[in-house]
């Protein structure tokens, strides 16, 4: 089979001298942004990353794409993002192993049930066909579940899962074909200058850039600090595991509201999932990517409680990645108030991967001069410091943060 191979990571290519827009971070957000900028005809876009593609959180997440949220902003954005995911293979010519088996949320308490009821009503108003279902109905969807002790569940059949890595290769390759220059293994060590003439120092030389976008996920605060921009987001380590491959049996992603347990079966057959580890929420500033036995035990107990048949299934691999948390549970986007020309796109609370296709689309349009999407106002970077009129926070707090 003769296949056209385009180098998505030109090995050893020299760093260009100048960029119109330099994107720091070749995760899904940075690459999707670069691709969308190229689609809009923006020239001289350069993406820099300290590591290789999929090294960071974009290569470490569970691959869920859902429209079940508690705020209208996230519901509407994710409706569009799921459609972009569904068209990704056609648009970008790479298989992302998407499977729309739905998302099933289970609730143990009356309080969580009330939250789900409210969310389902809002989702239905936005034309997301989520249904509130009884625990028995949940077992009709997933017969292996032990639903004892559950109050309620909700199910949306149009949610799904993807295999995250091909998104990076797909965006990188398509961006590369449109002239974007992508440099992995190229950390930015210093940022000097100002709008119109930033100078980004790297081991491969200095890149001059008119504008800079920091899309480094949980690493964004340290990157922004190079430009003297203080960001309030912080990393929380989340662990995840993968089992041996099994015959396809599990249709939806299953998640338990109270524990933050989530698991799904990929198209490769393996179960992939994680759970909240409350002791990780200490607000440590350093990013740890180590694995723990405590997670394996906590996850194994929760998983075999909700689906006892899994006790005989073997774990083959565990790893960790950082959620990028913000003080009010909403992302941080737009121009940094203290540094004109320096833009941020971070604080996505562990769901940056699934939001990247749609966020990058509108972020690129705003950078290209179009009217910014309303999320730029709700999630603007100066909301944590700004006094005076206007909402003090990023709008309504999103409560459907899982894991």
């Amino acid at each position, binding site marked *: 089979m003769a296949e056209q191979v385009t180098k998505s990571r030109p090995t050893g290519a020299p760093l260009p001298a100048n960029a119109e827009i330099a994107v720091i971070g070749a995760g899904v957000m940075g690459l999707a942004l670069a691709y969308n900028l190229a689609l809009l005809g923006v020239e001289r876009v350069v993406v820099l990353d300290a590591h290789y593609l999929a090294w960071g959180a974009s290569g470490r997440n569970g691959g869920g794409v859902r429209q079940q949220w508690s705020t209208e902003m996230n519901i509407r954005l994710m409706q569009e993002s799921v459609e972009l995911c569904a068209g990704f293979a056609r648009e970008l010519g790479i298989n992302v192993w998407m499977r729309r088996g739905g998302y099933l949320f289970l609730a143990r308490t009356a309080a969580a049930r009330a939250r789900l009821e409210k969310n389902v009503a809002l989702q239905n108003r936005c034309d997301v066909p989520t249904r509130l279902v009884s625990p028995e109905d949940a077992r009709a969807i997933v017969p292996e579940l032990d639903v004892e002790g559950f109050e309620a569940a909700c199910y949306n059949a149009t949610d799904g899962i993807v295999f995250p*890595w091909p998104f990076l290769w797909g965006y990188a390759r398509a961006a590369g074909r449109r002239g974007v220059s992508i440099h992995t293994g190229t950390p930015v060590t210093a940022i000097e200058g100002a709008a119109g003439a930033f100078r980004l120092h790297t081991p491969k030389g200095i890149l001059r850039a008119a504008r800079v976008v920091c899309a480094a996920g949980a690493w964004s605060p340290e990157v922004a600090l190079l430009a003297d921009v203080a960001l309030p987001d912080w990393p929380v380590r989340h662990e995840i595991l993968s089992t041996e491959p099994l015959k396809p049996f599990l249709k939806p992603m299953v998640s338990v509201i109270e524990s933050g347990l989530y698991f799904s079966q990929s198209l490769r057959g393996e179960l992939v999932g994680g759970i909240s580890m409350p002791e990780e929420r200490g607000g440590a500033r350093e990013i740890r990517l180590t694995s723990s036995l405590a997670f394996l035990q906590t996850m194994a107990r929760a998983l075999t409680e909700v689906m006892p048949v899994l006790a005989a299934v073997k774990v083959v691999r565990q790893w960790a990645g950082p959620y990028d948390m913000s003080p009010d549970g909403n992302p941080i986007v737009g121009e940094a108030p203290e540094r004109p020309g320096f833009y941020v796109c971070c604080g996505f609370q562990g769901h940056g991967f699934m939001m990247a296709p749609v966020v990058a689309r509108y972020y690129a349009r705003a950078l290209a001069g179009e009217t910014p999407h309303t999320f730029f106002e709700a999630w603007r970077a100066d909301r944590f410091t700004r006094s005076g009129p206007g909402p003090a926070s990023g709008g309504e707090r999103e409560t459907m943060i899982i894991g």
Partner: protein
Amino acid sequence: MSRKVILCRCEDVTLADVEHAVAAGYADLEEIKRYTGFGTGPCQGKECLREVALAIAAAGARSPETIAPFTTRPPLVPTELGLLAGRAAPGKRRAGK
């Protein structure tokens, strides 16, 4: 297509797959693990790591001494969830009953 050389038996990754990944610009063992899926099956690279590293070197992407092994992920061997949970596996039986 008569000479298909399998390097990773768990995930059916061939020599041609690795050469394709190198041609696409991937050179690190970590990147090629992700691009081809080699080393992500039950053996977690214990059987195939060396073979893939040699193939990367042979394809000219890296000299052998610059190819570092990928990060080893726990558990050391595939481990039953029931064991980790402190529960006995229900209806545990040998493969093939």
